[in-house]
């Protein structure tokens, strides 16, 4: 069956919300053009605008966002530069080095090196995301089984060197911020669905 989508009628008519604005006719002769220019200049409309600026400046009632000192709040699920989170209690890195983000990355911009550490655990020695290539699709955050790699709100990607895009330390929550409780969980792709506790199956502990 052919389906025809019904679009909103945007034609100007009596029934629509659209109407023609009243626009003066454009001057045609040279004299008329001169008169119009003179009228606009001499009436001093420019100063009306300048006065508004002046008045607000004096009143210090400024509504502009003072970027880069000040930034607009961004949606919590916005996918900007990645963050690597730490475990709340111990402060250890959440990343277990499973390599799933590296595998799933469709622009192939994640690289990691792992090794066995002194306690026979897997340790991540190098972790980098080439943000010059990253398309911020969010697959890495979605696939991460440990909620270790997430997207943050930092969207500035300007730098003198491409290498600056890939530094692990910039992504990892600093310990002092963690202690100050500044680390925030990410509610976007890959986050735990509300109420998921209920779906966890318990292992029988009959002994």
């Amino acid at each position, binding site marked *: 069956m052919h389906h025809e989508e019904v679009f909103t009628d945007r034609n100007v008519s009596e029934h629509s919300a659209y109407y023609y604005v009243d626009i003066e006719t454009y001057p045609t002769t040279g004299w008329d053009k001169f008169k119009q220019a003179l009228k606009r200049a001499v009436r001093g409309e420019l100063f009306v605008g300048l006065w508004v600026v002046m008045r607000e400046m004096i009143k210090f009632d400024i509504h502009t966002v003072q970027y880069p000192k000040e930034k607009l709040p961004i949606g919590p699920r916005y996918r900007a530069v990645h963050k690597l989170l730490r475990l709340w209690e111990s402060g250890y890195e959440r990343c277990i080095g*499973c390599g799933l983000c590296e595998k799933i990355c469709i622009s192939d911009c994640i690289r990691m090196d*792992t090794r066995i550490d002194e306690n026979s655990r897997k340790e991540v020695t190098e972790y980098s995301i080439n943000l010059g290539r990253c398309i911020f699709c969010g697959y890495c955050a979605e696939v991460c089984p440990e909620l270790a790699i997430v997207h943050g709100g930092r969207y500035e990607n300007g730098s003198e060197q491409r290498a600056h895009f*890939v530094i692990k330390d910039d992504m990892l929550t600093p310990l002092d911020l963690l202690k100050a409780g500044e680390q925030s969980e990410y509610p976007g792709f890959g986050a735990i669905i509300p109420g998921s506790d209920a779906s966890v199956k318990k292992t*029988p502990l*009959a*002994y």
Partner: protein
Amino acid sequence: MINFTINGQPVIASKGETILQAARKAGFYIPTMCYLEKTTPCASCRLCVVETDKTDGLILSCQTPPTEGLGVTINSERLEQERTNIMRLYDVNHPLECGVCDKSGACDLQNKTLEFGVSAQHFSAKEHHRTIEHWGLINYDPSLCILCEKCVHVCNEIIGDDAIELQFGGYKSAVIPKNSEVLDCTFCGECIAVCPVGALVSSEFQYSANAWELTQIPATCAHCSAGCSLTYEVRHTSNSIGAKAKIYRVTNNFEHTTLCGAGRFGFDFAVEGTKDEAELAKAVHAIQNATAIRFNSLITNEEAMILQGLKEKLGIKLYNEEARAYQSFMAAYASISGKTGFGGSLDAIVQSDGIIVLGGRIVTDNPAVRYAMTTAARHRGAKVVYMHPLEDEWLKNVVTQFVKYEVGTEEGVIAMLAKTLLSGADISEETKTFFDGLDEGYLCAESNVGDEEYTHIAKSFARAKRKTLIIGSDVLNHERASNIARLCAMIETYTEFSIVVVAGSVNTIGISLICDLDVDTFGGNVVGYNAAGDYTMGSIGDVMLKLPSLNSQEGTFVSINHQVLPTNVAVAFEGYTLNDIANALGLVSQHTIDYTEKLPVSKGFNGTSFDSLGNFYGALGEDNRGYILENIDVEANGILEEVEDLPEFNGTVVYRCNPVNQFNGYTARTKQLEKEATLRGSAQFAAAAKIGDGDKIRIEFPQGTQERIFELDSTLKGTIALVPAYDVGFGELNEQYRFEKVKIMRMGSES
């Protein structure tokens, strides 16, 4: 042939085949967890259960042969239930650390768990503390172990180390080193290969890469003449700019093949090179002015072709004493047998029920031969006679009769052995007179092998059907090698014995077929390729022009199975190759592998091009690697020479013998392999030489001196010490007779 049915469809099994094997051949799928094609069934998983119309209970298809007319059902509700329950039990308390497990998804347990849809744990058991064991190159995590026993079976039945066993203790069961606190074995790593979960892992590889990141490159091992199949697994190294890919690990098709420790852990021997035109010009100039090129046997057939081409073009000589010894041995051999090659192979050894090993330390010379012997002994109950001046502790589980002869008396021993084995054979009058004319009393007395020992061999082999005589590389460089070869050929020609000659190095056989070798005079202006020379090039030692090592080259080898085996580039090499030098010298070919199809047909090569050579095993173990050389007929006009007076080796005698997993300059520089370079001797030897454990000593060979540490080895007996050869020069064991009279002095005592 047995006719039976699986799920109502007719299936034919050959004699001795189990239901599982017949089902797999016919394309039916029966799940297994513990089954290994090359060992006897472990029968620990019980996943392969099937129903039959002649039994009430379920039977294990892995160890039950079908009977005529049997109706087997391999899928049913009951079987599905049974198998699912087994998987549920396997999963009880199995750590849910798949994300970091070293198996990284290449896990049988994970596959089967998903296959049977086990998504929750229905049973419980109290978990107790299990500690991760560190056994050198191998780590063992008992909490991941599913006790399938594959590792134990393979260690005992195929390798012969018998180093691990299962400690029975119900839920507390674990794999433990046998009769030892720590693992004491040859570190072949086969237990790692067969482990279906992440319980037994390589300690060096563990957690360094995920299985899916590794590019698999099928190749042939570059350490000994067995030419084992292996896969180099390669991955990028790090994020840093300019970081090159490297080999992370070596795996093998463990279901059908076996790999030794050198193959598995000794993979990081690649060299780096640059395209330095000035150095290339020097090399070209050096060859133009040289009288000879000296090389060792760590080269491919194609490179051998290039060297032969250079010889023909420039009129220079080719020196390779090790391959030349083999070449002349086989020439003498062919003069009796009428065939260019010997008739045996590794597969023939596996199928044997009687094996004689003579003149070689098989365990370290050629582990693949040892594994074949172990398999024959374990699976076929083969009688194994080991004839050598030195007993080998590693072979004690396999050898049924050890015959010790005096050093240097190989000719007499083989003559007596041939006489014993040929008695009653259909031999010519001439030969009969030759054997009747042997001075038995003298030979037995000098070689110290009694008449009764030969009689015992004859008696224990009387009922054996498939027999193999393994000739070690000691005799290749014996003064009387040609006559020994003729005697060996007599045995192969006139008895049921097939013979395997254990060639010394990776491509000794290939070189002996391709190159026309000259006698090394140790003089003149010589260019060395992986060998000593006035100008040196290659991938071993401190050479002037770097050429790619064998894991950076494509080409072919000839193994002791007379199989032409392809190998591939695992690590890129940026410098020049031998072919570039040959091109500059006017021997033009675009690629080295263009020579593969030009390998001499007259020697048994069949002209297949490199790209059409397979390098894999089929699902049922069909060998699709390269091709088998044709055994060319030659004129058999050789006659046996009189056995000469047997030499005597008195005083301090050492035996050139590499430690376990060491073969050549490649293994010597790998990271993981133990580089034990001591002179090892018994307490008796130490007393005679007046040295003690840990002493720094100087050994004076006729060719030069070596400084080493002496190590007392309690497993050795007698008055012969073992001196390694892999670490000196270019690591050739077989350039001279392996036993040598030497002078040993404790350093510091002579002043």
